[in-house]
């Protein structure tokens, strides 16, 4: 009696399984690695969240199952190599996304090249990465786009004469600081204060005072979130007489506004994306992502999550369309040209984003108002900003 019942159940389960398999295309294996622990854990975790949403949305949209393999590279270059060895070598994924920091993405993308597995990153902006001319290397953002947005805004919009640049000693922030300095100098803007500071600095006042004494109109801080919090708090205490405060990435994020409150007002930042900054053509897609992300994680997505999402989406699309062969996936990615929430996306032969420009935005009443480039602008810049004492 019992035996017969069991047998029937097994039969039913078997049939059900056969039916599902027959009805669906084979699952796509997508690999992702990110520093979910260690010094870059914060960024890595957000990146993975975005990638997960992409995989789920893709399945919903296409009916194709996604087998997402995530590997924590622990912010260690050796482990980043191991990640690719595992994803490409063992899991045999059709493409890899993720990676944060040039020192991790460098070795990882090299391993991916060895396995001939397409690799798309969103967290490594060093120009030297694409100089290697790997066929499998793609990235959604890179340095010149950020530098140009800052330098052009300062020259064209603010028409400033003297700029102070303070930058975190880490690799990406050093590179953008040097690039912006070069572009400003070429445009005749003076940079009398160009100072590097260490990660973990807590007293920024001596640095800000140098900017004050040099009579700089614009304060450019190329750093990370803690650096913005520190410099803005200290600038407010000093009532620093600058007309604009401009940061690099990671500024103007939901977290930024949440933590700094009124002090986040009128601060400029460059970004590839913040909520509500998508070009008109991609507003719907942006809304879809934000909604899915909020539903899944009960919080607002950051630009890192958005980049993770987009990179996974493009990779999955290319794999699905091309049938999974690396060469087809690469060709499809290289042929891609679309307007997306981060603007127009197309890759050049080195894998760099052809049209990438960051937007420069200003925080106003807790919202990001894009002020540059003009074609994505959502409003006029408030320049000079109101004094710190009234924020």
């Amino acid at each position, binding site marked *: 009696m019992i035996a017969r019942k069991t047998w029937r159940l097994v039969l039913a389960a078997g049939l059900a399984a056969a039916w599902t398999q027959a009805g669906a295309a084979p699952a796509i294996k997508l690999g992702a690695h990110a520093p*979910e*622990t260690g*010094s870059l*854990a914060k960024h890595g*975790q957000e990146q*993975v969240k975005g990638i997960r949403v992409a995989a789920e949305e893709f399945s919903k949209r296409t009916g194709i199952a996604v087998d997402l393999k*995530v590997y*924590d590279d*622990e912010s*260690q*270059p*050796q*482990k980043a*190599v*191991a990640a690719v*060895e*595992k994803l490409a*070598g*063992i899991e045999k994924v059709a493409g890899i996304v993720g990676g944060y920091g*040039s*020192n991790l993405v*460098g*070795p990882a993308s*090299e391993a991916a090249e*060895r396995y001939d597995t397409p690799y798309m990153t969103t967290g490594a902006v*060093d120009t*030297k990465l694409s100089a*290697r001319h790997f066929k499998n290397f793609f990235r959604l953002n890179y340095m010149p786009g950020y530098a140009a947005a800052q330098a052009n805004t300062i020259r064209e919009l603010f028409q400033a004469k003297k700029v102070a640049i303070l930058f975190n*000693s*880490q*690799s990406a922030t*050093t*590179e953008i600081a040097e690039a912006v300095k070069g572009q400003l100098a070429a445009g005749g803007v003076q940079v009398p204060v160009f100072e590097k500071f260490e990660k973990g600095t807590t007293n920024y006042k001596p640095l800000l005072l140098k900017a004050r004494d040099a009579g700089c109109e614009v304060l450019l801080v190329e750093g990370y979130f803690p650096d913005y919090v520190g410099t803005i708090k200290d600038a407010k205490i000093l009532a620093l007489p600058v007309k604009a405060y401009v940061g690099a990435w990671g500024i103007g994020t939901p977290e930024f506004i949440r933590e700094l409150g009124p002090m986040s007002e009128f601060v400029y930042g460059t970004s590839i994306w913040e909520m509500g900054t998508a070009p008109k053509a991609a507003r719907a897609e942006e809304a879809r992502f934000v909604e899915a992300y909020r539903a899944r994680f009960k919080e607002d997505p950051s630009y890192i999550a958005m980049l993770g999402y987009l990179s996974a989406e493009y990779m999955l699309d290319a794999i699905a369309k091309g049938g999974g062969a690396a060469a087809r996936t690469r060709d499809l990615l290289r042929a891609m040209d679309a307007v997306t929430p981060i603007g127009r996306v197309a890759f050049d032969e080195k894998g760099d984003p052809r049209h990438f420009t960051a937007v420069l935005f200003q925080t106003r009443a807790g919202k990001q108002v894009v002020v540059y480039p003009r074609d994505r602008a959502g409003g006029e810049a408030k320049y000079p900003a109101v004094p710190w004492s009234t924020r």
Partner: protein
Amino acid sequence: MRWPGSGLRVTEGTAAALFFGALALLPLALSFNPYYLSILVAALVLGSVAVSWNVLAGLCGQVSFGHAGFFGLGAYASAILAMRAGWSPWLAMAGAGVAGVAVSLLIGLPSFKLRGPYFALAILGFAEVLKLLALNLDSLTGGSQGIFGVPPPTALRLGGLTADFEASRTANYYLAGLLLLLVWGAAVLLRRSRAGVAMATVHADEEAAAGIGVPVLRTKATALAVSAFFTALLGAFYAHYVHYLDPDSAFDGAWSIMPIVAALFGGMSTLVGPAVGALVITGLDEFLFKRLFESGHQLFFGLLLAAVIVWAPSGLLGGRVRRPTT
């Protein structure tokens, strides 16, 4: 750690033979799977640094918290020698070892008058200074941008076999394994030598050692120099293995801390213990904790560490392996 119900004790030589034998055969068992091998390479590098660290700590009783300094120094020295001076990576690695010795003596001589935690932390201070120098001497080190494209060691041909260190994980695995064997072998020879006897006496009682004519300072300096030589050599291997260097990863504090953890875990009283410890902790973290929790696995690692210190303070091999007597 004593296993209940087993009175088996092996000599250190036997333990080492078993260990290195297993290392040599492991790739076969793993069918040369590059992922496992790349994890093992990381474990072997850590193990070698742990054995080097233990030359100073286990043999001579001087605990350092700043071996990341020697590791990063070796990595940068080798990369710069290979890329700027055009040395062969093999030669550059040896040069890095020599640089490690030179710097270790500069650091060690003023520091040796400090005892216990003060010595340990003085070395940590020097390691931080080295890191800051790597960060700020842009023209030499590329600053925070680091050094890209560090060449892999040139391929070796042996009859029909080619060891290609650029792509093959197997080649790198065996190279790392050989380095570990080299470090361990050197440590064994050192322990047997006259200097090794001196280190043992200094470890046991500095004053009594001086009383029987042991030159304490020179003994400590020798231990540090040997330890720094191999740590720098491993740093050099690391640079040629990952092909990228930046101050944050080359001078990562983990290179100071993890070897200590590995050595304690495996047992500091033996020379092979730290290497065993490195393999076990890397294995546990990678294949057990990481499987259980994708991003929370280090949480277990912290607890495990605390547990081992409390309940097995002499390490895995501590109670199991008998030190040979001369």
